[in-house]
């Protein structure tokens, strides 16, 4: 399948989504069929694309570009790229996606808004697949945001529930905070590199020339430009992939239907952050001892450990899995920072399978137990739902890193690269501790849910775990969880070599060398030991959840309280960030009301004062003055008129006086 046709892969689900929005709400079965069918077709095409990349023996990367729009005399091109990274992601997303779609057909068979659900889910799939094939950072960003939109739509699917609506908003806002960093990084890259195309016959921003120039250019504090830009992009990836401190949305996102949690928050959307960093790895690695890779490693390792701790204190079935996802994403970041994209992608793929498996299994459990999600009120399902128990166990073992399952090998790779990291050993230690905790909390969850007494009263006897639409996906995912690991063992690192473009060689020597064996031993110890520890604490003969409190709670109540409440990070955010923003908002509004508004009114008052003074001057000074003058004149005239009293003698007196005056004046003048 040539690269020009790559667009079909996201286009099919998009078309399905479009068709589904036009269908009436009664066409549930047709909707499921269309949606699932389109995903399977996408998977087929992804397979064809993957085969294309295998055609040549060596590393193949082909691109297809076209002009989107022109500004000035330049044109902005976008397009798709087909290389091993793309192929791997496409296969993972489409396969896991198809299986989840299939599962949803059964899971949501009785949901009245099924059509809308599948429309939204298909839209998500389209956006995710579009993100994967993008050869341009802008196109990737567009699909990134659309994935966020789809996530919002799906988390808030049961919009009547206030918690779901709030969780959807939280998810979008927190990831958007990350997206803003991504956005600034993107436009920065655009302005210094002049192009956002990844691969463009040598001129792309991930190709030699640009990467070299970005690595050479430094800004404040001596940081390379590539480092700064990738740090900003990292912030975006942290949002989408739920790394601390932008992880707070993921646990709440469990409000959405379980298939949504499986697809978006296990296999696809959260993996997009890791994929983005893997794709931009040339930039991250542009300078030796790159600051961004260090940052990625630290963020990843801290998140991995922190989330594993918190998972230990959770009692909601899906939330444990959510925290587990956060933790595993931290592992992926750790792998990326220390070992490169191949290590991270390997874990991404294996994680997609076993986490989706776990979520779907959890979905079966929830539905069977009347939508009960609290593990303290579940139990004893081992015998009532044996098939689910079986596949769930496989998923759990894979996650906990039980030897020779897929999770074991992918974590192995991460340990291997973390151990030899020059900067510090602490990430390795954190990773190891996290692995132990992973085994513990997963076993804890399994024991609570599947072992012990059956504590749930609303178990639906009618629920069939053998239905094809339920069983096939679970079984397929379980197979993946078991087998996929073998693609990436130390002895035969097919996966890594495929991604990096070399031919894989079967080398048992690599496996048996001291370093590797030691690590294998360590991982086995951690996982088996952790499981044993948890079994020891939580096994049914020791601990009855119906009557006792969680042992951890009993022994370390204060620590448990911190774990249970995620170290109160949510509350801290609410008190600082949320409250701060609201205060700022109110402040801005008050500023308007009490400052700018009154300033304008002050100006108006000033003008009014001037006008008032003018009126005063006009009325009092001019008008009344004029009146007064007139009156004075009139009074004077009246007075003068009164002098004319009609008496002759008076007149003669006037004449005489005037004459005397004249004479006197003349004499005076004459004298001077």
């Amino acid at each position, binding site marked *: 399948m040539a690269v020009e046709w790559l667009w079909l892969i996201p286009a099919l689900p998009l078309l399905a989504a479009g068709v589904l929005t036009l269908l009436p709400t009664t066409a549930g079965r047709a909707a499921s069929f269309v949606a699932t069918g389109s995903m399977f077709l996408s998977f087929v095409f992804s397979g064809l694309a993957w085969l294309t990349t295998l055609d040549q023996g060596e590393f193949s990367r082909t691109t297809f570009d076209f002009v*989107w*729009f*022109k*500004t*000035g*005399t*330049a044109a902005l091109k976008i397009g798709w790229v087909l290389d091993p990274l793309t192929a791997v992601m496409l296969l993972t997303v489409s396969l896991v996606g198809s299986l989840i779609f299939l599962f949803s057909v059964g899971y949501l068979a009785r949901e009245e808004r099924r059509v809308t659900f599948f429309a939204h889910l298909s839209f998500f799939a389209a956006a995710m697949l579009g993100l994967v094939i993008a050869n341009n950072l*802008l196109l990737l*960003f*567009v*699909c990134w*945001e*659309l994935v966020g*939109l789809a996530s*919002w739509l799906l988390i*808030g699917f049961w*919009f*009547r529930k*206030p918690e*779901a*609506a*709030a969780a*959807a*908003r939280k998810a*979008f*806002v927190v990831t*958007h*905070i990350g997206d*803003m960093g991504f*956005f*600034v990084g993107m*436009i*920065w890259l*655009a*302005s210094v590199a002049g192009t956002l195309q990844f691969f463009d016959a040598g001129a792309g921003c991930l190709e030699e020339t640009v990467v070299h120039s970005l690595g050479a250019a430094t800004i404040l504090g001596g940081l390379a430009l590539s480092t700064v830009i990738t740090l900003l992009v990292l912030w975006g990836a942290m949002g989408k992939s739920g790394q601390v401190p932008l992880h707070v949305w993921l646990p709440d996102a469990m409000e959405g239907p379980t298939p949504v949690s499986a697809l978006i928050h296990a296999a696809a959307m959260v993996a997009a952050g890791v994929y983005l960093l893997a794709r931009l790895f040339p930039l991250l690695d542009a300078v030796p001892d790159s600051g961004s890779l260090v940052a990625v490693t630290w963020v990843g390792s801290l998140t991995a450990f922190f989330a594993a701790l918190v998972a230990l204190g959770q009692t909601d079935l899906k939330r444990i899995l959510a925290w587990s996802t956060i933790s595993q994403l931290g592992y992926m970041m750790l792998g990326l920072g220390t070992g490169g994209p191949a290590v991270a992608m390997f874990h991404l793929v294996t994680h997609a399978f076993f986490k989706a498996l776990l979520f779907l299994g959890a979905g079966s459990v929830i539905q069977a137990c009347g939508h009960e999600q609290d593990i303290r009120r579940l139990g004893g399902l081992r015998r009532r739902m044996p098939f689910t128990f079986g596949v769930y166990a496989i998923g759990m073992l894979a996650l906990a890193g039980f030897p020779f399952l897929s999770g074991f090998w992918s974590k192995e790779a991460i340990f291997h690269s973390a151990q030899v990291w020059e900067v510090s050993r602490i990430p390795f230690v954190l990773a190891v501790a996290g692995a132990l905790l992973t085994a513990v909390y997963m076993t804890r969850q399994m024991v609570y849910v599947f072992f012990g007494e059956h504590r749930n009263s609303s178990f639906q006897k009618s629920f069939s775990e053998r239905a094809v639409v339920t069983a096939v996906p679970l079984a397929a995912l379980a197979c993946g969880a078991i087998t996929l690991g073998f693609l990436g063992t130390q002895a035969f690192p097919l996966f890594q070599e495929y991604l990096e473009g070399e031919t894989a060689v079967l080398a048992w020597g690599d496996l048996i060398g001291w370093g590797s064996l030691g690590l294998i031993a360590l991982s086995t110890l951690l996982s088996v030991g952790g499981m044993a520890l948890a079994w020891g604490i939580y096994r049914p003969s020791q601990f009855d959840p119906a009557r006792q409190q969680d042992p951890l709670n009993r022994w370390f109540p204060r620590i448990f309280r911190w774990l249970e409440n995620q170290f109160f990070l949510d509350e801290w955010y609410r008190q600082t960030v949320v409250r701060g*923003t*609201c205060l*700022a*908002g*109110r*402040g*801005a*509004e008050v*500023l*308007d009301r009490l400052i*700018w*508004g009154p*300033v*304008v009114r002050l100006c*108006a008052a000033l003008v009014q004062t001037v006008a008032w003074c003018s009126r005063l001057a006009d009325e009092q000074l001019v008008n009344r003055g004029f009146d007064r003058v007139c009156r004075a004149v009139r009074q004077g005239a009246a007075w003068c008129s009164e002098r004319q009293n009609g008496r002759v003698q008076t007149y003669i007196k006037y004449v005489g006086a005037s004459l005397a005056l004249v004479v006197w004046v003349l004499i005076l003048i004459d004298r001077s």
Partner: protein
Amino acid sequence: MTVFEPILFMMLAPLAGGAFLWRFGREWSPERIAGIGLGIAGLVLLTGASLSVGALRDGAAFLTGSSVPWITTLNVRFGVTVDGLSLVMIWLTVLLIPAALLTASETGDRTHRFVALILFLEAGLIGVFVSPSFFQWFLFWELCLIPAYFLVRFSGSASANRAARQFLLYTLAGSVGLLLSFMALFAAVGTFDFIELAQTEDLMSRVAEGLGWETVSTGTLGLILFALAFLGVAVKVPLYPFHTWLPDTYAEAPASVSMLLTGLMSKMGFYALLRIVLPIFTDQIVQLAVWLLGLAVVSVVASALAALAQTDLRRVFAYSSINHLGHCFLGVFAVMTAGKAGLTASVNEAVTAFDGIGLQMFNHGVIAGLLFFLTGRLENRTGGERDLRSFGGLRCFVPRFATTMTIALFASLGLPGLSAFMGEFLIFKGSFFFVGWAPALAVLGLLLTAVIALEIVRRVFAGPPNQRWQDLPDLSRKEYCVVVPALLLLFLGGIWPQWLLEFINGASLDLISLLSVAP
């Protein structure tokens, strides 16, 4: 046929129609009056569409305008010049006016006045976007203001009267600044034509000579004149802190009037900045660019914050408008920090920013217009209710309305795939090249807008259904006539922005070349 006759028709037809309706409309039924008004607006729309056809076919040859002598003693001509940007603005006008008229019949027995005033406003708007010289332009600028005042106070309540008065006086104060500034220029140079003024050498020293003000230095004189002219624009668009008239006005005016105010009249102000103030006062803007840029960033962030604190839907969208238009200011001033030399050196980046501004002007007009339209329809259904807290779960009762408004809200927050993203992306991309800190800070505004949009969706449409609204009707056929084209434009702008960029690009290139060589 040149562009002169159709534009003249587009200016005169609404004037005549409005006058006719004002005089004779009292006896007719509201629907009939609205129908006539729509008919006239429709004619104008068709003329505008024919303009586009001509523009697409003949390109620049069609668009260069012509003028006839008018008042010869003052060297005033009556003319029409249209370029890509004006054409886009004219499209916005002819699209939004019929949308406002669709619901005009609800104003009852004063419908004839309402429709007439809107038609007068349309004539004024078309005139503003095509005038090549100050005299004519200012005439139309004020011609827009008077009907707008009466439209804002149409409901007759005391608060509406107060808001209208503040709107009128504040905007007039700004216009007076413009007038003074240009009278000074005219006294010195003797022409009102914008292009001529922009290309005049040593404009400020000639003004100083012409006015006989030797004591004031040329630089100071230039700054004073610029400040006066800029005041008019800053109040109109508006720019923080000259924006305090806006929330009250948008809240008190009838919804369709707010739609026109936000969609067109603010664009009118910004268009004036691009066409008039920027080319003529280039040096002063370059000098003050960093400060003005800071003001633009403050405008973006502070208005988004203030929007967050509002509970009245209208006020939220009012502050949101200030935020979006702040992006346009951001783009202009970021580019101008480079100075003329910088413009010549990096033409493509500057054009990117200006393209983004043009896109943002059109797209925001559509989006904000749609949002106010929908708010108005919501108020109409719920008897005037528009407090965010009094709704809940409306998606159950009016699903299509909810979907439309959600799409419009996501568009306003800049979701890629919808039109506003293209404008914002291009503005940010172009500005970042020249100044880094300003777009980085303005990104906060984007984030806050996202929070606001989601809050509105959550409070109004999601959550437990508020049984008070269970009988609300969904979108009516009339409303579809507005909603469907608007949504189409939203998606079209997001997926294929070239349809607008085709026209805006040319205009931006011309503007940049005018700015970079202007003396």
